[in-house]
């Protein structure tokens, strides 16, 4: 089995999600239209903004519009919890994915310049490609999905209840009472 080390660290972000409710994620036309984040640089912000639009085409669905959810700032905050080495590895993975279309397959374009249809095809081709490609595309997808679904505003359309204890007025049972001392009859 051929596996690549940097995937290990980029995959660390697989299940995770970012924080917060700040910037919206409307589709910018160019790299310069987006400010850099604290962890992500402008190009990476631009990359994820394109990826989010492709992965989450919410227009015409009952789901919360992607541009009303702070996907990018959530992602940026998530990155801040990651060690620098992981961020470096992720940057490498993003570059590979961004430019992969120019050398692999028939796309002849950077990912961020692909029209949506082509971008979907490109993503799907990585999904069924070499395990390394599968790993990269899984991580990138998960990063975007988790940064979207972690936001409370996305739950209503799914009928997901979110936190309930306070809503239901549940009281804490607190610490359990001390048990009676008993021996378990050790037999050795």
């Amino acid at each position: 089995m051929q596996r690549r080390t940097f995937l290990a660290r980029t995959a660390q972000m697989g299940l995770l999600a970012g924080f917060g409710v700040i910037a919206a994620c409307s589709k910018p036309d160019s790299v310069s239209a987006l400010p850099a984040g604290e962890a992500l640089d402008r190009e990476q912000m631009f990359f994820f903004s394109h990826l989010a639009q492709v992965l989450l085409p919410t227009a015409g669905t009952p789901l919360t519009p992607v541009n009303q959810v702070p996907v990018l700032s959530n992602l940026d905050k998530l990155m801040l919890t990651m060690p620098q080495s992981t961020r470096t590895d992720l940057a490498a993975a993003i570059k590979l994915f961004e430019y992969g279309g120019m050398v692999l397959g028939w796309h002849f374009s950077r990912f961020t310049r692909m029209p949506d249809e082509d971008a979907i095809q490109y993503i799907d081709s990585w999904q069924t490609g070499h395990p390394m490609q599968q790993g990269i595309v899984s991580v990138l997808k998960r990063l975007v999905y988790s940064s979207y679904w972690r936001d409370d505003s996305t739950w209503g359309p799914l009928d997901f209840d979110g936190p309930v204890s306070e809503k239901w007025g549940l009281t804490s049972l607190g610490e359990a009472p001390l048990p009676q001392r008993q021996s378990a009859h050790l037999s050795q």
Partner: protein
Amino acid sequence: MLKVIQAKDIKSSELNLKADVVIVGSGAGGAVMAYELAAAGKQVVLLEAGPYVPSSQFNEKFPDMLETLYQDHGGQVTKQGDLLVLQGRCLGGSTVVNGCVTFRVPDFILEKWGAEYGLTNLTPETLSPYFEKIERNLSIHTNQPHEINQNSRKLEQGAKALGWSVKPLQRNTKDCALTGHCLSGCKTDRKQSMLVTYLPWASHYGAQIYSDCLVTEILTDSGRASGIKAQVTDPQSGEKVADMTVKADLVVVSAGAIQTPLLFLRSQLGSQNDSIGKNFACHPSTMIVAEFEKDIYTWRGAMLGVYMDEFEHPDKGGFVLEGGGAGPMEIGMSTEPGTGKSYLEFMSNAKNYASCISLIHDHNVGQVSLKDGQKQIDYELSDDDFPAMKLAFKAAAKIYFKAGAKRVFLPTVDKRIVESEDEIDNKIDGIENTPFAIRMVSYHPQGTMRMGTDPGRSVTNEYGEHHGVNGLFVADASLFPTSIIVNPQESVYAISNYIADYILANEEKYFTRLN
């Protein structure tokens, strides 16, 4: 009120303590050990690397709690990157964030441990009083009908229709409020985790509990354990607050199956056979999702309701399926429904899904080691274990179709949606054991400090004591010589209590110098 000394309470840059026993880690193994020894009159110091987060601060938002309560903010993965290894890193350890399912280690596993590793002391008869005691202390009970939600009912319905054995799970909860948020910690303390049971009880008997304290080295003196060194760190700023030394007659390491071997390796306490960190197993788990016509709301109600044990014995397959609820975040990561519109369509139907967790009896093929001083977990699903994984998928798909599912989503990285019963074999047989092929997560790391009578094949003896260092015990899931197929917490509690009793029964051997 649980008394915990935290980084913010420490005013000097150096702390030197003395105790009868120092315990590393406050999870399933460490908390039980602390209580048993403290209640028997020993001076106990317990050190936990993670923070003390009172349950009132649990906000029932899984991503937030992953970052607050879990090891590596929930991002602990294998070197290969395709398996997430979840563990708690907070006072109470993984017991705070676990799903509350409890099982006794199956008898056939104990028999195997006896036959293959010399653990003839750990018979069902010996352990039974320990299990009974734990079950009493942690309010362990069989799920009542109201604790089995629609999600689990689907698993039950399909399994029964196939004539397969399916049972309500047992859980360590008291008056469960059915919030479905177990993995984010139980905000109202219904889960009988160590945070609300054994830790306060240990504290009542005088155990001193420290959080924010990472133990960095085990100290020895002439072949005997003599204490530990630790570092106190402010959990907010990450700044070091103090160095700490605890001198003790006895050291018990209960840092879990990943950190315990690393601590031994950092302390240069190898074993004669170099097996520290080897034999890692983890019940690689997946989530299988099925779509139904009617609303299921998998996230509502008790998170885990029933399990299908028809294939539990290794001769029959070596896996179990547990009806396990999931929120949108977990559902959204569990499968590959396609990119763009098809993904959104899949997510839009979230309330119509039932989900179950597969646990397989994996063999101990992994390793935890230090690479350039950093943790490295090596684990690949072995070709020997792959058939069990596929059998589990097939069984789940059959069950769900019998229960009336419209389609079943497989936990693969490529898009594999089973649209009818006829497609099951074909779709599942086509999965290959390649990296990233299956979306796996482990909740149950085990086995890296194998227990056994033969010092040539194990790290500790049959009572958890290191073969080469007297007074140095391990009491956590790392002791298990093999994976146990079922959820491990209750077995960790029982074995830790058993080891505590062994120590107390032989106290003249262990508590000599400080008294």
